């Protein structure tokens, strides 16, 4: 277990020592390795208090907890933890680069490594162009972005994110969700604490719901959200006659009401498309930009198998350009190394990978990880998944520098 709480209780006492409120009440929770866990709850339900106890900022009144097998606040364990508090809480007098440099030094990173990570993270969170501006002059969303970057500077095994998308624009929200997904795939454990249900649903493997300091529900997203008593059918455009026929069949099968609607984009998807187009036209902004993919160091130390897997992921991402969607229903953020990895692979390997890819199953609709899992339940038309050789060729042109730079172009 990465995180384990045993009857964790926090009682808030007043000045005279009288119990005033029970913030967390006998919480038993286990978060497994490589899991993205969402801790949900309304305001004041004890989410942040739980996180603060896990980090040693608060001490339990009763019960206990272990993080990465050690008691909270253990210095050695902290090397492996990244933490984004609910309001970032950064030094306003430092600029973005100095902020990351400061936290990098606290992790004992050497100068070269620190600089590499800072450059990479600043680009990743889209603050490369405002790296010299004091954080005190940042908008809340930009502060969140740099807060996230500081939480990642040590390439943590466990990432604890408290309301990570609060104050972020849809671009930032989307990037954080993509990042969480990418980190989850990389085998990192993520504890996500939020009251924005859509965010949690999109990225989490399991969720726990807190209310009044007590755990009210715990399980995988599918377990908790799938209505097994209902069926949803999606299809290309149908004639009204076909629709009526389908309705008739359903009526015969089940007397319940049948609803037939045209699907529409989620506002988030639409917004992102507009911003991407604007950015492609190189319109100026004084704020954060779209950012690059996941920082290279966060995806480093991969096995050969993982590299191959990334190539495939990269290719799936390329496919998203054709509008067929991805695991989260949008252009995926392809790790920079996935493009670099392509350079290391010859045509034969790529061809074989493409062949493998034709066997892959891709989510049919936007809706994140939970939706992706749903999509994995059944095969799709293999012909639709066949990769165009021109995509591979365009990727390979990067080897001689004629193509777009690594880390760029994935969002186009």
């Amino acid at each position: 277990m990465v995180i384990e709480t045993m009857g964790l209780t926090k009682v808030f006492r007043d000045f005279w020592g009288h119990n005033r409120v029970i913030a967390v009440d006998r919480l038993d929770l286990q978060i497994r390795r490589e899991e993205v866990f969402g801790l949900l709850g309304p305001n004041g339900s004890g989410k942040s208090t739980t996180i603060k106890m896990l980090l040693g900022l608060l001490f339990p009144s009763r019960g206990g907890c272990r993080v990465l097998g050690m008691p909270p606040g253990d210095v050695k364990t902290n090397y492996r933890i990244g933490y984004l508090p609910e309001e970032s809480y950064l030094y306003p007098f430092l600029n973005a680069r100095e902020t990351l440099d400061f936290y990098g030094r606290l992790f004992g990173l050497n100068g070269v490594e620190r600089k590499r990570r800072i450059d990479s993270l600043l680009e990743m969170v889209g603050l490369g162009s405002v790296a010299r501006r004091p954080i005190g002059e940042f908008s809340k969303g930009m502060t969140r972005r740099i807060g996230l970057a500081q939480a990642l500077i040590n390439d943590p095994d466990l990432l604890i994110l408290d309301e990570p998308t609060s104050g972020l624009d849809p671009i930032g929200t989307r990037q954080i969700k993509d990042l969480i997904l990418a980190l989850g795939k990389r085998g990192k454990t993520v504890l996500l604490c939020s009251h924005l249900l859509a965010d949690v649903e999109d990225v989490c493997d399991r969720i726990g719901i807190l209310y009044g300091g007590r755990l009210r529900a715990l399980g995988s997203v599918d377990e908790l959200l799938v209505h097994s008593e209902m069926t949803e059918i999606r299809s290309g455009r149908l004639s009204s006659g076909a629709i009526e026929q389908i309705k008739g069949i359903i009526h015969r099968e089940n007397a319940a009401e049948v609803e037939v609607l045209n699907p529409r984009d989620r506002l988030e998807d639409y917004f992102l498309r507009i911003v991407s187009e604007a950015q492609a036209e190189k319109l100026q902004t004084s704020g954060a930009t779209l950012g690059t993919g996941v920082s290279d160091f966060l995806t480093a130390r991969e096995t050969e198998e993982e590299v191959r897997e990334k190539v495939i992921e990269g290719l799936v991402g390329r496919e998203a350009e054709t509008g067929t969607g991805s695991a989260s229903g949008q252009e995926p953020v392809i790790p920079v190394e996935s493009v670099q990895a392509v350079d290391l692979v010859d045509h034969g390997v790529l061809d074989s990978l493409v062949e493998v890819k034709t066997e892959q199953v891709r989510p049919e609709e936007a809706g994140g990880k939970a939706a992706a899992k749903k999509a994995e339940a059944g095969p799709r038309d293999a012909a639709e998944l066949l990769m165009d050789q021109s995509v591979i060729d365009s990727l390979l042109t990067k080897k001689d520098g004629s193509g777009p730079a690594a880390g760029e172009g994935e969002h186009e």
Partner: protein
Amino acid sequence: MNRVWAIAWNLVREVLRMRFFLFFLILVTFGYTIGFSLWLHGADSMADEKVKFLLSYSVRSMFGLLSLVTIFVSIAAVSREIKRKEIFTVTTKPVRRGEILLGKFLGMALLHLLLVGANGVLIYGCARVLQRTEPDSELEKAKLQELVFVARRSVKPPVPDVSREVEDLTRQQLELKKQELGITDAETESHMKNIIRREIGKQLLLYKGAVPPGGSITWKFSGIEPRDRENGFVFIRYKQEVSYTPESLATDGIWQFGPEDPTLAGGQWYSRRNAIRTVHEFPVPVREVSAEGDLYVTYRNPVSNDPVSVIYPPDTGIEVLYAAGGFEANFLRALLVMYLSLLILSVWGIAAGAWLSFPVAVLFVFMVYLFGLSSNFIVDALEMGTADRAQKPVIKAILPVFPQISDYHPVDQIEKGRYVSWYFWDNITLVKDLAIATVVALIGFLIFKFRELARVIV
């Protein structure tokens, strides 16, 4: 250690980027301190008086203002970081809480190094400019060099032991007073005894330093080690009190000095007429000091002064001064002592900030600072006052806990060209304050280590 330095440097950066701080630094410390002091003193003074005033005023102002900065910044360094929750992102990194406090302390040390250094250079520069521009004559120039731009050690004659006589006389006087006033209860008797003892002690010491008309007194000063044993001078500095104030407000005096007791060995006499209750100084050739560093000085009160007895109070009446070092090194040592004082104050500030909120911690450290500064006054008031027997020892025991900075503040030495020792541990009060600061730091660390840094919000 890199983590500690990162935290230290972060604090320095924070302070230097405060606009208020820059305003403070430029307008107040530099402009006010030096500009105002020169303006205030006027143009009609002697050069040495001007430089003394500059040194005294600037150094005092610098220390006072830096003390304020120290109190505010050291407390804010921890308490405001907890309040603004920036501490969340630091303590959740691989940093021990002790390292955070150590980093803050080192940050304060770096900051003070910068501030004391910058102020010191500026004050020194101004003093040297005045030394070049102000003297109107060679005599003024020489006086300035001899009295101000020098580091002189002081040797005082031993204070005579009068304790036995004091006790005998106190007993006699107490019996008389008891009969006279009909005192019966023990508490009043004890209080009365203390007053009588203190008064008799003071009078006896004055009596020992008193020279009646026609009489003389000889002092032996030992341990004089002038830098230049061949040439130059040592200085006899004295201040006369009198038993009866003459109309002229001045007295005659005949002086004699030498490596051996002049009353036995003979030697040349020098006559001087001096204003009473005023500090005077005259040079004595260094050859009059024996190889062992002894100098005998004899004062004769001529009958022309009759009926005035001239009195040299044992501690403040007379001393011998000799050049033991240069001004630069002395000024540097004075800055070092002030630097240590500010570090002591920083420790109190950081420790208070580690467990109290900013306004409460400021109040607490101000109280500590003011009690420390006024501890001598409080002790005197206790001696003179009517605090009961139970209160006195408690207050007397508590007072030394506060940093008694005024006891070792070197501004007087700098102003008067006195030697400030490298061996600051010779100064028992400073060593005591450093030791107490270490204990305070330890208490602050323990509180910070075991306190919750977040608040429960539900």
